[in-house]
């Protein structure tokens, strides 16, 4: 573990939901996260494994601010330094957006001027090895691996590297890829980390994948975290 100040620090995090059932009439509390402590140091790769339903995605969503925790503290990063790449990246792409517009969207939202947007989008496509796909009019024309890289390029576009070290959260984004594509993505992530001081939280149900790239591997089980290696 790195001794410098963590990018993200989570203490005693809890997330519960209440469900009402009518027959019998009662309120059931469902626990997603049950007292999670986690520090992510700059430039570290933290792997998170666990069965489906164990709370991995809930933790990712809490850290990225997409979900409000029920209790505990989170010290996290603003969106220009933290991005989440969802499971099934292909489904998160707008079929009516061209490849260039897809990458440019976060820049448009942050109010970047048009010519800067184009330059930056091109840069991010180059980083992910997609520059020759820029002409494609829709993500439908891309292969599964290219779509995964496009989602990564969009996340990179939203990160501002000069405002400090960032964090990428990959929530099972590599899970349904072909083996060669998965290897390409892992290589790309390792290279990006080197070049841009990125930390990565890699969520997956495949221990072999996670163990190969991570500094620390954590396992989530019924809302609690255990360190594996």
């Amino acid at each position, binding site marked *: 573990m790195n001794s410098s100040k963590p990018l993200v620090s989570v203490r005693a995090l809890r997330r519960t939901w209440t469900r009402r059932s009518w027959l019998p009439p009662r309120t059931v509390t469902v626990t997603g996260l049950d007292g999670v402590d986690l520090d992510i140091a700059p430039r570290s790769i933290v792997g998170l494994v666990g069965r489906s339903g164990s709370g991995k995605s809930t933790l990712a969503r809490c850290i990225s601010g997409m979900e409000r925790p029920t209790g505990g503290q989170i010290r996290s990063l603003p969106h220009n330094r933290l991005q989440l790449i969802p499971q099934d990246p292909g489904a998160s792409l707008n079929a009516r957006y061209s490849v260039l517009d897809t990458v440019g969207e976060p820049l448009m939202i942050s109010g970047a001027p048009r010519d800067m947007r184009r330059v930056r989008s091109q840069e991010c496509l180059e980083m992910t090895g997609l520059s020759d796909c820029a002409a494609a009019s829709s993500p439908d024309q891309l*292969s599964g691996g290219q779509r995964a890289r496009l989602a990564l390029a969009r996340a990179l576009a939203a990160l501002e590297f000069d405002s400090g070290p960032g964090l990428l959260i990959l929530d099972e984004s590599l899970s*349904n890829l*072909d*083996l*060669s594509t998965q290897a390409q993505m892992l*290589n790309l992530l390792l290279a990006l980390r080197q070049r841009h001081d990125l930390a990565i939280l890699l969520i997956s149900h495949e221990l*072999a994948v996670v163990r*190969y*790239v991570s500094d620390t591997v954590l396992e989530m089980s019924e809302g609690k975290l255990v360190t594996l290696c």
Partner: protein
Amino acid sequence: MSHLLEVHDLGVEYALAAGKAGVAVRDVSFHLNAGRITGMLGESGCGKSSTALAIIGMLPENASLSGSVRLDGHEMAGRSEREWRNIRGSEIGWIPQESLVNLNPVLRAETQVAEVLRAQTQRSDCLPRARAALSRVGLSADAFLAYPHQLSGGERQRVLIAQAIVCGPRVILADEPTASLDAAGRADVLGTLARIVNETHAALLLISHEPGVLADYAEQVMVMYAGRIVEEGRAAEILNAPLHPWTAALMRCRIPNGAGSTRQPLPVIPGSAPRLLSKACGCAFEPRCSDRNERCGQSAPSLSGRKGRQVACFVHELK
């Protein structure tokens, strides 16, 4: 001995916009035997699903099919939708990959399975038979009444298996049945499938992009690349000693099991697989192949070798 399902010179072509056509599958021949699990390995977009859809007559409207598919000697290709309705489910079962998309969110598990029977059976028989199928795939009685969102991914996948087997098909096609499951769910579903094949003596075509899935369960494996079968043989032979350069490269991309945090760049297959091919000159893998020679770009190799272990590659023909 005649085979239960024989596919001969199967070709699938999709009509695209502007009068163009894309070939998804070409010259595919194989057979399935009762009580056996045959694996099909390939990258996404290589024609695995098109092959399976052609066998069960569910190709989309813009697809055209050539070649023949024979079930017990009866030609399946070119049947009408009306005839297909009696074949699907009762002769050929289908297990799709996405359980959330393929289950009706407002029906209980047992109703979903009973619905499949309605085309064949009287209404009063449907529910008891559906429950029998659900317990056969290992679901407990409380799960019978659950809605899809109340079930785990593995349980939902088992509901899909129950749907596929409830009419007692002789051939089962499973298109990436474990794609969205974690390791425990995967072992669970594959184990259930293997047990069903053993009990019902059905022939199972198990389609996957992961060699690991096929290694433990399939006996024979065929490898598809760009719409053709490029290698076939016993599962252990193919996965431990692959001959075709694509299969060999794929096996190198696997993350070594038990490897620690080495962070060495992994070997990859450069480039990407061609999608919907237009012309047929040269081996489709030639642009990405590290063993290519001048012959590879000129004509496409066909499968050769001994019976039960074949490969479509000029490099191996020479040896």
